[in-house]
Each structure stands twice: as C-alpha cells, then as structure tokens.
C-alpha cells in the first residue's frame, strides 16, 4: 500500500509539473496581452513597448516560465496586471466561496448517495428503487440553469424564503447567513447526488450478485453484516471514482451556478481574468484548479486501492 501510494504521488507531481508548463503555454497563446488591454488606440506603440518591458512581457517564453515557476515555488503568484493587487489575494478570495460550495455539497451528497445507493441496490426493481431512479434520472437531465431559475422563481421570488443572490455578501457572511448557501447547493446537489447514487447502486448490485457475496450468504453471514463488511467495500469503488470526477466538476465547472446566484467564486474570477488578459491570475487559478483535480483523483485512487486492492492489478 505504501509503495503504491508513493508511486501514485510521484506520478501526480510529474503530472503537476507537466501541467504547469501546459498552463503557461496555453495562456501565452491568448491573443494580445495585458499591455494591449490596458491601453487604447490613443496610446503610442512606444508607450506599450515600455510597459511590456516593465512587465517583463518582452522576455522569451522559456525565461518567463522559469521566472514564474520560481516565484510560484516561493509562494508568490505575482501581481495582477489589471488591478495591481497581489494575485494570491484574488485567488484566495474567489476560491473560498467555490470551495465552500463544493465542500458543503460533497458533505451532504456522499452520505445521502451512499445510503440511497445501497438501499436501492439491495431492492433493485422495487418501488423505492424505481422512484429513486426516476427522480435521479430526471434531476440529472435538467440543465443547471433551468433548475437554478426554477428554484429562484419558487423559493426566492414567490415564497420569499431564501435569498436569491449573493450580491453584497462576502465569504465571511456565509457562516452567519447559511440561508445564502441553500439554493446554490441544492442545484449542485441535484446533479452530484444523481450521478453518485447511480454509481453506488450499480456497485452494490454487482457486489450482491457476485460469487463471494453468494458464498458469504451460504456460510451464514447475516444480511446487515454482509452488506457492510462484504458488499460495501466493493460497491463503493465506482462511487469513489465518480466522486473524484464530481469534485473536479464542482471546483471548476460551477460557473452557471455562480453566475445565476452572483457568487464571487473561482469560475467567475477566471472568466473575468481571461477577459482582461490578466495572465498571472489566469495562470494561478488554472493551476490551482488543476492541482485540486489531481489531488482529488490521487485521493480517490488511493481510497479505491485500499477498498479493493485488485484495482491496481487490473490496470
């Protein structure tokens, strides 16, 4: 196990290095740079050239990459080209909200999905199973923005129970006003839980019909014990992998939810940075999200490996 973990982490570090190169290359491919954005038609080319020199934009790409990487390793993500404030501040501010949304969603989604997945898997074809399957299929198929708007229309506008937007709120307010979280998390949960339940259900079904579950039953293992000790570790494997994918999506892809509820999150900050050619912020945010995705996948792999060590052999 320890060796497997070490190998997996080393691989992740290599991936991260490769990724930082890619992020840098791709962002330097963006048409125009901050100097173009900051100045308009009236500024002379000479001024732009001077600004480029000040910002270090006239250096060769390899040199710029090394400088950037060196600064990153010392914890300095640079200065925003548009606002002049440190990038780390922008990142910290925007990622906080996203991480909170993703975290709350995951904390609710996993136990709910695990229990419902196990129960529906055990009673496949039963009334509960059919109901849950129908509901999750429907929820999973509704686009986020439709669901968001529908929830806002009903709970915020019609009933007035919950706030419909985060405008004016900061990350700090969330803890004192949890009502802000309800609608965005509800939208995120709809898709997350639907996908997770289906994976856990399929895993449970597969494990229950397996030869080892049958043999455990024949050797007199009682039902609850069978489920928890023999079926669950195997049934959870596809769910854990799905969870890592869901985590990626939650961190990077909650744009619609952020846009609808005006959440000052990572996706919003990223779009804003790309629009203003604020390359350091784009790079820092992209790299952070990529690193988080890598981390989640490594964690999922290690958990799967612990649950079912054969996974490694099959690969």
């Amino acid at each position, binding site marked *: 196990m320890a060796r497997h973990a070490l190998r997996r982490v080393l691989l992740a570090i290599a991936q991260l290095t490769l990724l930082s190169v890619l992020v840098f290359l791709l962002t330097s491919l963006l048409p125009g740079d901050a100097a173009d954005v900051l100045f308009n038609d009236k500024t002379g080319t000479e001024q732009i050239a001077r600004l480029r020199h000040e910002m270090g934009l006239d250096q060769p790409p390899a040199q710029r990459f090394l400088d950037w990487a060196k600064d990153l390793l010392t914890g300095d993500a640079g200065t925003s080209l548009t606002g002049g404030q440190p990038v780390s501040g922008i990142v910290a501010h925007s990622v906080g909200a996203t991480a909170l949304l993703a975290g709350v969603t995951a904390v609710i989604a996993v136990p709910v999905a695990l229990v419902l997945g196990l129960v529906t898997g055990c009673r496949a074809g039963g009334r509960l199973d059919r109901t849950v399957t129908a509901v999750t299929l429907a929820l999973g198929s509704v686009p986020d923005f439709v669901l968001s708007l529908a929830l806002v229309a009903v709970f915020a506008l019609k009933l007035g129970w919950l706030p419909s937007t985060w405008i004016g709120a900061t990350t700090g307010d969330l803890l004192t006003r949890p009502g802000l979280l309800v609608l965005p998390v509800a939208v995120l949960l709809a898709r997350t839980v639907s996908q997770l339940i289906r994976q856990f259900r399929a895993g449970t079904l597969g494990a229950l019909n397996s030869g080892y579950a049958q043999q455990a039953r*024949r050797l007199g293992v009682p039902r609850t014990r069978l489920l928890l000790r023999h079926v669950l570790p195997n049934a959870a494997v596809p769910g854990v992998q799905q969870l890592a994918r869901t985590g990626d999506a939650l961190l990077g892809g909650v744009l619609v939810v952020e846009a609808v509820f005006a959440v000052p999150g990572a996706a919003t900050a990223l779009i804003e940075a790309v629009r203003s050619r604020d390359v350091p912020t784009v790079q820092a945010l992209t790299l952070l999200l990529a690193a988080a995705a890598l981390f989640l996948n490594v964690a999922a792999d290690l958990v799967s490996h612990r649950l079912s060590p054969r996974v490694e052999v099959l690969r």
Partner: protein
Amino acid sequence: MTRPLIEVRRLTAHAADGTALVRGVDLRMEAGRVTALVGPSGSGKTTTALALLGEAGAGVRLSGHVRVGETEVVGAHGITAHAAGVRGGTVAYLPQHPGNALNPARRIGAVLTELAALHAPSGGGRNASRALSRAALEQAQLPPERPVLRRFPHQFSGGQQQRVALAEVLACGPRALVLDEPGTGLDTVTRAALTRELARLARSGPAILLLSHDHAMVRALADDTVVLEAGRVTARGTPEAVLPAAPAPVTVRESGEDPDGGAKEHPEDSGEERPDGTPLLQARSLFAWHRRRGHNVLHDVSLRLRAGECVGVAGPSGSGKTTLARCLAGLHERLGGDLLLDGAPLPALVHRDREQKRRVQYVWQDVHDSFDPRRTVIDQVARTAVRLRGRTVDQAREEAGALLCEFGVPPRTAARPPGALSGGELQRAAFARAALARPDVLVCDEITSALDAETAERVLTHVEHLRTTRTAVLWISHDLRLMRRVADRLLVLDGGGLAEAGACARVLARPRSEATRRLLDAEERGQRRRTALPAEAGPHPMG
C-alpha cells in the same frame, strides 16, 4: 440404527417453467462418511446439494423433506424459515470455482476470523476466533502465518485460492461439508494432492457430500455413491459396485528406437512430422510477460498448426498453457515474437478485422462470466453467426439450436438465461458459440474438465468433425487420456518454455523430458488410487 446427521426424503425441485429438475431424491449422510453424488452435468447434483443449505436457484421450487441435524430445512411447502440457521455452522458449501467465492476487497485473515467468530459455539473472544481461523488454514494446507493472513485473494495462485476457499468453509466449523466438483481445472499432480487432503479431512469427522464426475476421485474418497440421472436416483452403493470399471492403465512406456529421429537439443515444434502444406497458424519464438518485461511467463515458444491438424498442449498448472492460448486468441497483448496466420501477421484481438476474428476462435474454462446474464443462451450463441458470418438472425438461431442439441443442450434449456444452466451446459454453449463461427483455428483450453465422460465425448466428436472441414485445433488439457485420442502432435510446456514436442503417441510413450515424465507419473498414480488410498504424504504443490 442411529439417526443420520442429514436426511433427505423425496426431494423434488421444479424450475420456474415447470420442468422437474430433481424428482424424488433420497439421501442419508453420517458423520465421518463421504457420500458421492455422481451423474452427468444437468442431472440435478448441485440443485440437490444446495437444498441441504435451504437454497434454490431463482424461480426453483423445492419440496419434500430435508432434515439437517435437528433442523428441518425443506418441508412440503418449500424452504423453511429455520434454514438460515444451518448455513455455515452446520452445513458448509465449497463452490465449483472457488476463485469467484473470495472477496477481492478483504484480507483472508479478516474473513476467516469473522466466520470463526460468527459460528463459534459461545463466543470465546477474538483470540479464540483467531486460533480457529489459523487452525482452519492449517487444515487447508496453507501456512497459518501473519503474512499469509494479511494477503488478499488475488495474491494467491489458482490452486491456493481453492485452499483459501476451503479454509473459509472449515473456519465455520461445519458438521457437514458439500464439495462441488473439487479439483475441476487442476492438473493431475495438484488434483492427486487435493484428493489426499480431502481424504484426511473426511477422516477428521464431518459428513461430506462430494459432487463429482471424476470417477477416480470418487473411487478414492467415497464410502457411498449415489448416481443421479435426469433428477432421479438410478443407482446407489459402494463406488466399486456402482461405477463402471476403471480404465486399464494405458501408460505402458515403450523403450527402443524413436521412429522420428533422435532427441533434439532444443525442443522445437517444427512440425516436421507432416512436411506437406504451409502452416495455417504459426508462432515463432513467442515471449509473453505480465507486468514487467523480462519476467516472462512464456519464453521462446514456437509452434505450427496446419489445416485440419490437432496439436495438444500439456503441462503442470502455471506452465503457461493458458497464456499461450490467450496469445493466439489475441487476448494477451504483452508479447514478443511473431504470430502469423496464413503467413500474415496476426495482431492483438482489438486490431483484428472481422474475418481474422472469425478465423481464430477461443474457448476457455469457467465461461460463466462471458455470458450476458440477461439474454437467453441461444441468442448469445447465435450472435456469433450473425456478427462474424453475416447470417440472418433466424438462420443463426436455427444453426445454433441444432448445434446445441448435438451437444445435449435441448432447445428448452437453451432458451433460458445463462444463470439457469449448469456449469457443464454453459461450457458446451461456449463451445457451440465458437464453433458457429466456422473457425479455421479453434483454441480449446480445458473445455472438457467440467464435463462428464459422455458429454465430453460429444464435444470430442464435434472437434473431430470440425477437423474434417480443415479446422485446426489447439487442444489444451490436463487429461492425457483424451489427449491421446485427439492430438496428432503434443507440446509439453514447463515453466513457460517448451519442454518437449513431437508426435503425441511418441511423446507419451517415450518421454524425453522430466516434465512429461512427471505428468505421466501423476496420471498413473491417479489410476492406481481407486483401491485403498495410500497415506503418502507427498509435497503439497502450492500452485
């Protein structure tokens, strides 16, 4: 007369469609005695055995009377509510393919301790359970050490997995054991060792029900034999009285001149015995490995297969027979060397075109997982002809039905999903599925090991028929008796390399390699064992 431990009276079982699977079986089992249940596949052996646990397949209705210890397991109206109480602690069942019965996510020590604690008479705490689990492991001939206990099932070889499954069964401390076809798929040497161990187990006290079509094993172990045919008991008594006489030993080795030249330095299947024609399938110095190159499971194996020819492959467990088959079938992709079909390179399966897929077909043992559990068997068998030969669905179904009938799988059985077929019936269906492609090369890996003699005969007849239509056959088997019948030439593998190759009759009559001699010795011992069981304590091959 004392009350037997297990008593079965007028047990019947009906499938969901009303077919009678078991029609009035009576059975008595006593502590310390081995009762063998023999009969062709599909005769109701497993259904009867599972009834002792109060278990029946999906849709199967049991009735009659089954008493285990003091518990009524099956009554006139089917399985009783008390049946769950006998499972494990009183009657424990060892399934036919133990590899499937082990939980891939659990360390074996944890499962053994759990089972021991579950069935221990009055608790006794964790240490007592640990001691019981170690004892069970020892009884199953595995060292009861911590590193072994901490392993996962996939870290054991096939033969060892069988022992682990046996240890799990023994950890429950059952008063009666049901062994379903133990030894299926094991080579003769390992099978002989298993037989010895089971004999020792039988003497240690539990009542044993042995389900087997291996007459040699039944003769060696059983006190009583019950013969089932089509769900009815047709004979009972001692093995000697009931079973047909054992075949006379045929392994008389000749001495003297080799008709086909002197011993070769480096054994190589040159196919010189039949110089006519070009090879249909050729493998040139094939290497294969699993996870790391260099750790080869096959080294430098060459073979030639001509149209209409049958080449046998023999060797102990782990000698690389199945890897060779999987290489030819394109399923093992980590290989070096050349693989040629009609002189053209044959790629791995995913890169083969439809015609190449049709031309090389592979049938293996333990085929259950290769069938979709939701579709009927006949549809899945017929699909080959649709996919690979462009037949219409109706034509394909007709051909498939006829072929399955020839193999003794009636249309009514074939119209069920695979879960409702016995292991032997599925094995034949898998063979039919491959044969329906009208392959040019048919690779058969131990396809008769789960079949009784009569059914195996039908399969062999069809193999011979295929050869008359110029299909080449690679026949992998532990059964040297069948090998003599089907194979023109024989390759003996040992430790991944070719130990010997030559005309089948010559290799088995005048073996030149140690590996071949060992196989022949084990076969001879197996045939002798039908009289008294020798208490020889030979080494136990650990896979």
